[in-house]
């Protein structure tokens, strides 16, 4: 019996050899934008994202935030709405910290950006640690199951035990902020490392809860790129991902990272993390790395999911350019095993949805495995 789309993706990630390239597509940026603006193509007015993907013949990558959520004890968490900003204060017995966020509706209803980070100065470290230590993980399985049922066997729900970030990323991007993180790491390394350890402990609690759901692939961290300095990645990221991979593998789960940035300098380290899937791989012209280089550097240990940079869906590239790119990508990935065709990382809002179906047609013509060059 033929495999369904979900089975195909999982089989490739487990190292099985299929007879054609699987395709898992992400269109949520395009879909959310046009749904919000009432500008979906006439044919798709009122359609769900999943039904559009089914119509195009592609497997789905359905994005979901997290299978756990955070609850707080022994502190008061006060949220103040002052549109467009939301200020959240964490009032603890040892002090108060606050963040200011703004919702961005262009990419999806849940995307929030911190306009003011929780960390402001050195005095915030003890309070931050208190907040993390007094945060509990509880399951968020209900909403996840609803989406999983909607996707069915036509693709994968992309989610994880925590939010977007692994612990170090969370400290770097969300809690302290990128530039300040590196200054703090230079000036007060012990303080930063203590905070990282506290966030890791919280993530371990989340993993223990999350393992109770039936998620097959855990997306353990988003938005890897070379701006995570290689020595920092080696020192702080690699040991964490090895630990997480061992834990998830021991429960029969697969491990994925959303690696959609410039990965030229991090690629050699990817194999040391123990992850199974590097997802949203984005090659040239959007980055400096070709698919051939990705394949060579990641070897057979890591399944590559991605390959079509968002920019290729832009109107500036005609159908001929698009087809030539896809065909060349297939050649570069020959013989084509451990490769899931996908986007790096999404269909842009002004992209042509029919190019998703075009990829399906090109796989039918040129994506039968093994690909011979």
């Amino acid at each position: 019996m033929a495999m369904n789309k979900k089975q195909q993706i999982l089989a490739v990630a487990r190292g099985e050899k299929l007879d054609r390239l699987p395709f898992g597509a992400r269109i949520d940026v395009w879909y959310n934008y046009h749904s919000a603006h009432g500008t979906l193509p006439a044919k798709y007015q009122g359609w769900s994202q999943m039904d559009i993907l089914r119509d195009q013949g592609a497997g789905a990558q359905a994005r979901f935030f997290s299978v756990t959520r955070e609850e707080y004890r022994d502190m008061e968490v006060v949220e103040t709405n002052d549109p467009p900003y939301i200020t959240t204060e964490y009032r603890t017995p040892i002090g108060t910290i606050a963040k200011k966020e703004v919702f961005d509706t262009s990419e999806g209803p849940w995307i929030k950006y911190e306009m003011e980070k929780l960390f402001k100065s050195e005095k915030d470290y003890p309070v931050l640690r208190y907040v993390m230590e007094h945060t509990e993980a509880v399951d968020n399985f209900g909403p996840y199951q609803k989406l999983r049922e909607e996707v069915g066997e036509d693709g994968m729900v992309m989610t994880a035990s925590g939010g977007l970030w692994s612990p170090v990323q969370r400290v770097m991007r969300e809690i302290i902020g990128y530039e300040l993180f590196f200054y703090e790491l230079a000036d007060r390394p012990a303080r930063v490392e203590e905070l990282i350890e506290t966030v890791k402990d919280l993530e371990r609690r989340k993993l223990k809860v999350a393992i109770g759901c039936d998620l097959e692939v855990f997306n353990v961290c988003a938005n890897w790129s070379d701006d995570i300095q290689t020595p920092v990645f080696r020192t702080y990221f690699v040991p964490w991902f090895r630990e997480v991979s061992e834990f998830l593998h021991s429960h029969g789960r697969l491990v994925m990272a959303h690696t959609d940035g410039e990965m030229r300098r991090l690629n050699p380290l990817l194999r040391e993390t123990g992850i199974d899937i590097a997802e949203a791989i984005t090659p040239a012209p959007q980055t400096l790395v070709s698919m051939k280089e990705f394949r060579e550097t990641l070897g057979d240990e890591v399944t590559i999911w991605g390959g079509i940079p968002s920019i290729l869906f832009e109107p500036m590239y005609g159908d001929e350019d698009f087809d030539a790119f896809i065909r060349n990508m297939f050649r570069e990935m020959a013989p084509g095993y451990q490769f899931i065709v996908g986007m790096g990382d999404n269909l842009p809002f002004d992209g042509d949805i029919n190019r998703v179906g075009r990829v399906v047609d090109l796989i039918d013509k040129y994506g039968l495995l093994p690909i011979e060059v």
Partner: protein
Amino acid sequence: MADMSLIAQAIDQGDRDKTIELTQKALGAGDNPQDIIAKGLQAGMAAVGEKFSSGEYFLPDMLMAARAMKAALEVLAPALKETGIPTIGKVVIGTVEGDMHDIGKNVVATFLSGNGFEVFDLGLNVPAQKFIDEVKEKQPDILGMSALLTTTMPVMGKVIKALEGAGLRSGVKVVVGGAPVTQDYADYIGADGYAHDGGRAVPVCRELIGK
């Protein structure tokens, strides 16, 4: 006269305290602040930029160097009160409207100012009209725009059109960047330059203004 190569070396190592100490010493020894900047601080930044381009250094190495340079400039500020800090060009920079990402833009702004540009950072989520107003008022050599999202990327083209509409386009070079942006896209929207990352922004801007 102080050994300017030591200041350059401290910048290269991103050592803020050492840079401050050596800058204070040079100033105390009667060195010309302009020389300290050109032969010490900017020479150090140039070395850091080269090491970044060659793959030896990483983005945070450049941030540390720029932080050291900024601290040294604060030391020199009183001595530069009359002449001001010498600049090689003026840049107005911002992340376009609808986009809340500013790491890349901040890095570019930091590197440009560390390399002798006078930078006016408009922040993130900058409306097109704000860019136009600032170009009118500041008359920069370069307008830098950043977008991380495919949803906001087209805004850069709209700003270029608005510059044309306002009769300002010929007076300013436009440089664009951001994760989804490519050289082809920069050409497509009519930008003058494209910088793949913060390190490359400096040579691109220098070349555009012939410095």
